[in-house]
């Protein structure tokens, strides 16, 4: 990128400013990476890098880390599919069908944006039990989807505002049903937003601790976020196992780090694409 292409570059045109900018970034990055570095250091303090191999190949409290990653990803996949599917349908209805009570319903939906998982923990436990979904990825995924849906609807409706109504009206006059318009116009044009939504769903789903820890009690269905806590008891308070615990913590972060590094483009691009009103 050339200097002139980016006007912000002017902020650090003077040598002193330039140095200050870099100093803040370098010191900042060092501070931000400090937890990572200190965890790695503690994980190899006793037993060295071999700890990582030990941790990967041992079952802690019946929990195998690789299995936990797989469980997290399965739940995340379910959450993505359900949230994007249900969210897109609802987003279409809110954005492109002019029906009685639309605004009321839409705003009621937005009121649920800040509902915390903890506050519906009691009924979710009861509901999941009665649906027979304890220890099932679906049982965890459904409440995650429900908590993400208000946001999904907001995102997809806002995005749909950039789809010209004329386009849809023209198709409708040509005799296209809502389903056809949804499939052939709405979905393709919502793709960037859906990708953004999917990326965020993955991030949020693998972060979920409450539902997975409450609804998954089988060792074999434990998720990565839950494993942070449930494997703790399996490490004896000896120096080497203490280090191994840190190695386990490090490994639990790996899938998230991979997803962030690979998916960052989608997260930011999606946001940028959604934010520009052309």
């Amino acid at each position: 990128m050339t200097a002139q292409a980016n006007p912000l570059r002017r902020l650090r045109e003077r040598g002193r400013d330039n140095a200050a900018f870099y100093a803040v970034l370098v010191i900042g990055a060092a501070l931000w990476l400090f937890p990572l570095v200190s965890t790695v250091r503690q994980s190899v303090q006793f037993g060295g890098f071999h700890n990582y191999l030990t941790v990967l190949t041992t079952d802690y409290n019946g929990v195998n880390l690789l299995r936990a990653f797989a469980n997290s990803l399965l739940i995340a996949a379910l959450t993505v599919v359900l949230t994007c599917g249900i969210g897109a349908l609802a987003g279409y209805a809110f954005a492109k069908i002019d029906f009685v009570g639309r605004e009321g319903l839409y705003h009621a939906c937005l009121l649920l944006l800040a509902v915390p998982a903890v506050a519906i923990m009691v009924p979710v436990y009861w509901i999941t039990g009665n649906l027979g979904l304890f220890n099932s990825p679906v049982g965890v995924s459904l409440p995650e989807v429900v908590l993400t849906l208000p946001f999904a609807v907001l995102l997809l409706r806002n995005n749909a505002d950039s789809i010209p109504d004329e386009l849809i009206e023209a198709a409708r006059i040509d005799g296209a049903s809502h389903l056809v318009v949804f499939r052939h116009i709405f979905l393709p044009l919502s793709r960037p937003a859906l990708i953004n939504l999917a990326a965020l769903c993955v991030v949020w789903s693998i972060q979920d601790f409450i539902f997975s820890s409450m609804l998954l009690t089988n060792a074999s269905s434990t998720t990565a976020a839950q494993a942070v806590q449930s494997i703790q008891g399996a490490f004896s308070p000896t120096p080497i196992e203490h280090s191994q615990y840190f190695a386990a913590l490090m490994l639990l972060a790996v899938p998230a780090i991979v997803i962030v590094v690979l998916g960052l483009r989608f997260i930011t691009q999606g946001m940028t694409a959604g934010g520009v009103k052309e």
Partner: protein
Amino acid sequence: MRKEAQLGRLLGTAGAAVALILTAAACGNSGGVGGSSNAAQASVAAGQSVTLNYWTWFPAQTTLQKSIDAFEKANPGIKINLREFTNTNYQTELPLALGGGQSLDIVGVQVSAMTNSVRKNLRPVSDWASDLPSNWQSQINSTMLDQTQKIAQDDTLYSIPMGSIGSAFVYSNQALLAKAGITAEPTTSAELAADVAKIKATEPGVTPVAFSGESWWQDEVFFTVADQIDPKLSDELYTGKVAWNSPQMVKALTAYQNLFSSGTLGTGTLSLKEADADNAFNSGKAAFLLEGSWDSSVLSSAYRQANGISVADVGAGYLPVSVAGGSPAARTYAEGGLAIPKSSQHVAQAAKFIQFMTLSQQGESTWAPDLVLVPSLNGYTVPSSVLTSPAAQSGYQTIAQTIDAGGSGRGEYSTTFTSDVLDNSLLQVARSQITPQAEAAKLQSAWASGRYPLQ
């Protein structure tokens, strides 16, 4: 063309989604919340083996594994699948799992803290006593059996206790003590303070006294101090015979606060978890360790060797007396209850394991030498070969005697009052953020607020 391709992709995605959901849903349990009805028993054909799911938090996996190996060897048709949790985690996980109808066959029950939160999901012992020897009750320490039954709100026996524990005690690293010129276990807080000063002087890198900063541990230490004034004081507080703002209570709070304000116990240690404190002691970075008798394994040199604990010799004693005119105390209770959940489909086999663990010499000899409990089996004594040094021998003797003396009930009154109000405010007392008088008044007003009915 494009549209068709898109439609195809859409249908493909939808199909995949449905398939994914169906597969995933198939792993679920069958419905209901509560888990309070008896599961039908699975029939086991001859030669077929049965796997029992065993959940517990205690004793440590290394200890239990020896028992399980011995049991499986003696009973070739039964496999035990053990899952072990941390203490605090287990109190959350077990009720959730049992309420969710998880199929478990044997569960460890914290007699004092958990009996009532899971009893609706457990089969009373009378339901499966027919699978035990007919005289089983006479083989178990009657006090411990009685305590296990009395704790249940419906006065029913739900588990058979493996033994009894008490707290708080002090374990000591003999090598560090010798280096600092300390020759005997401290018996008063003044002696402990002097010892701490010596250790600080000779070993600046060592934590003089390590202990868990977890909130539940604070009331253990506090009540031990309180019971030094009167061995039944903590019982009387919980039964309402003594007010929380009574003079004895203020005296106890003051003594407890002094332990910290004098620097004998460091408030910095309060950020440690139990495992961290044990770790510090086990790796030779702490001279004393305040712990419950469940940590007596460290007295066994065989256990230390098997678990990579580098400390050469460990001694033990009661919590030094911190009040003038007081006497040594410890709160004790039956512990390590073994129970069979209603969800178990293998009651007979589970009973067999419990019998092995609590009623057979062979079973006891697998876990009791690790000293985690004073065993409940009448007539069982820990082989003398376990304790190899004079310090460990006299330490274990002190602990066993103090437990036998039977002070107040440890954690017998585990109400949310203890966890919500008492534990949190004890931390404030320890840090001198509140005076003993103000604290006593606060406790009494919370006690009387109606929020915490006696269980």
